[in-house]
């Protein structure tokens, strides 16, 4: 079965004044995959993410999300489309005046007409799915640790059972244990809810453990493939990225973990 891509970008152009950030950028995200997006600082990863979700208008090119051309949608259609994706911003971006449960209820209240009682129950289900303890539901974002805020942000992002989940540096600022737990949570949710996930990340361990493919934003364009495929790319940045000391360490750890799993299973 030929899979229709969930996100298709063709010839994207992004400019800030005279600085060109993306040029002739093409990207396809397949249904059900976890795609990692990497690139140097200032290479425009977050800008690309914001452009896909419509926070920023592209200066040129075409973006299709779930088969719909973002450039041609009227505001109502864009609103309808926006409920089919969830976004986790870097520090959760929770509404600080609302409790965690109220935060998760916001998308539900905005886009659906379910009863308040069921809405609260669903919010609690999502909070549990995001791996938060039940008593976190009544806390305010300022009372949570950074890792818990991210989980709460994730609970809000999956509130409407989206098709696509965008994660902006989900493991940044977490300790290695928290980061690994978050990675496995993302993988679990992907399996349980059948999500397509696009995550911007710098975390090599995340790339190895959860991502099916990796897109590298380099010289204003995207190179995409599995890590094995990218390793053969002659570009010096990619070679440094995956072949550098941290890249090799992550690869080694991943290979050991897989060997252990195979031996154990």
């Amino acid at each position: 079965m030929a899979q229709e891509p969930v996100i298709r970008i063709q010839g994207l152009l992004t400019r800030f004044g005279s600085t060109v950030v993306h040029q002739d950028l093409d990207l396809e995200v397949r249904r059900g995959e976890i795609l990692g997006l990497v690139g140097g600082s200032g290479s425009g990863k977050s800008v690309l993410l914001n452009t896909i979700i419509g926070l920023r208008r592209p200066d040129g090119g075409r973006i299709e999300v779930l088969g719909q051309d973002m450039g041609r949608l009227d505001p109502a259609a864009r609103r309808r489309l926006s409920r089919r994706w969830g976004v986790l911003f870097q520090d959760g971006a929770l509404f600080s005046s609302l409790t965690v449960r109220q935060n998760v209820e916001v998308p539900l209240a905005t886009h659906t007409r379910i009863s308040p009682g069921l809405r609260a129950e669903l919010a609690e289900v999502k909070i549990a799915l995001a791996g938060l303890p039940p008593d976190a539901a009544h806390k305010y974002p300022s009372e949570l640790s950074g890792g818990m805020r991210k989980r709460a942000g994730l609970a809000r992002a999956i509130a409407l059972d989206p098709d696509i989940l965008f994660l902006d540096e989900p493991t940044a600022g977490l300790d290695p244990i928290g980061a690994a737990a978050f990675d496995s949570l993302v993988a679990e949710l992907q399996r349980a809810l059948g999500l397509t996930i696009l995550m911007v990340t710098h975390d090599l361990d995340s790339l190895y453990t959860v991502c099916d493919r990796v897109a590298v934003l380099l010289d204003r364009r995207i190179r995409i493939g599995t890590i094995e495929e990218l390793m053969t790319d002659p570009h010096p940045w990619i070679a440094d990225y995956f072949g550098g000391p941290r890249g090799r360490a992550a690869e080694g750890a991943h290979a050991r973990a897989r060997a252990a799993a195979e031996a154990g299973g």
Partner: protein
Amino acid sequence: MVSGIRWRGPVQAKDPEQAAILTRERQGEQLRLGFSGTWVTETLAAEETRLRRCLDARELAGLAQVQLDLGALQRLDTAGAWLVCRTAAALRSAGLEVSIEGVQEGHRGLLDAVAARPDPAPPPHALPFPLGLLARVGEASLALAADARALVGFLGLTVVVLLRVAVRPGRVRFTSLVHHMEKVGFDALPIVGLLAFLIGVVLAFQGADQLARFGAQIFTVNLLGISVLREMGILITAIIVAGRSGSAFTAQIGTMQVNQEVDALRTIGLDPVEVLVLPRLLALVLVMPLLVFYANIMALLGGGVMVWVLLDIGPDAFIRQLHNAIGLNAFLVGMIKAPIFAFVIALVGCFEGLRAGGNAEAVGSQTTRAVVEAIFLVIVLDAAFSVFFSVIGI
């Protein structure tokens, strides 16, 4: 035998691609709930109430077994899965035997994930009405007392640093001092001048209106002179300065606090009070008397223009009358308050800035607090000064 009861009606008209469909089939002690169509967040609102009705005690009477049949489902998401799990749990707790049948492979993970939800935590306990109000009043009072105490503590700290620097004046940061003098003094001239001028106009207009009834128009000048020099000039200036400079101090220092710049200063061995607070405080104390003098002149100018237009009292007559009406005392009473109000405004501004902690939101709330507190203290002090001056007879 009782034949099966079916619910039909609007159900048949629904498009299974777009709607959640619930069928209900009862045979003796057995109930079969069939879930079909699309059970997702958007579609299940209508069927939720029907599903709830099925759990009614009257409906359940005489039942022993319930089957939930998911075989004909087209789409399911966590919301639908949750409804299935919730229904099953409710039926089980009613003492019935529940089986979930026909679970499709793609839905199993979803059902398992949702079913694993732990019991929700009860909402935090809130006190009942009169007690809760009382508790909040108490908390607010204690917080107020603690704030006042902390402000007095900060006053002491600032005075100590001020004395330390007074011994070695070389430690004053002159670049910073001059920069802040320009910001809080020179840059404030247009707004202070304009507002003072307008206040003079208003005072003269209202005074002339009332005094004309007694034929005492000329005393408008006395009214203007006394009120501007003793009170209005300094108060208007202090309120503008609190709004534009006190708040700026809080925002600047608060942002530095949130960015941990203040902590960085401390680790390098610099005293934040000396580096951040002192230049701002000294700048405002030095500049405020000049601003007040300028505001006085502008207000008198505004009033003078107004009495000239309204009462035909020309500049000569205005100045002569002003000379008769006010002595040096009136001027000094206003001016002496300037450095003190400046000190209070700068102190409160810097204090609230240093207390901004944690997040960007705190900077905003601290800035609001600083302005309110500064204006409050200025007016309280002004009242105290009035009492004091009347007691000593000035």
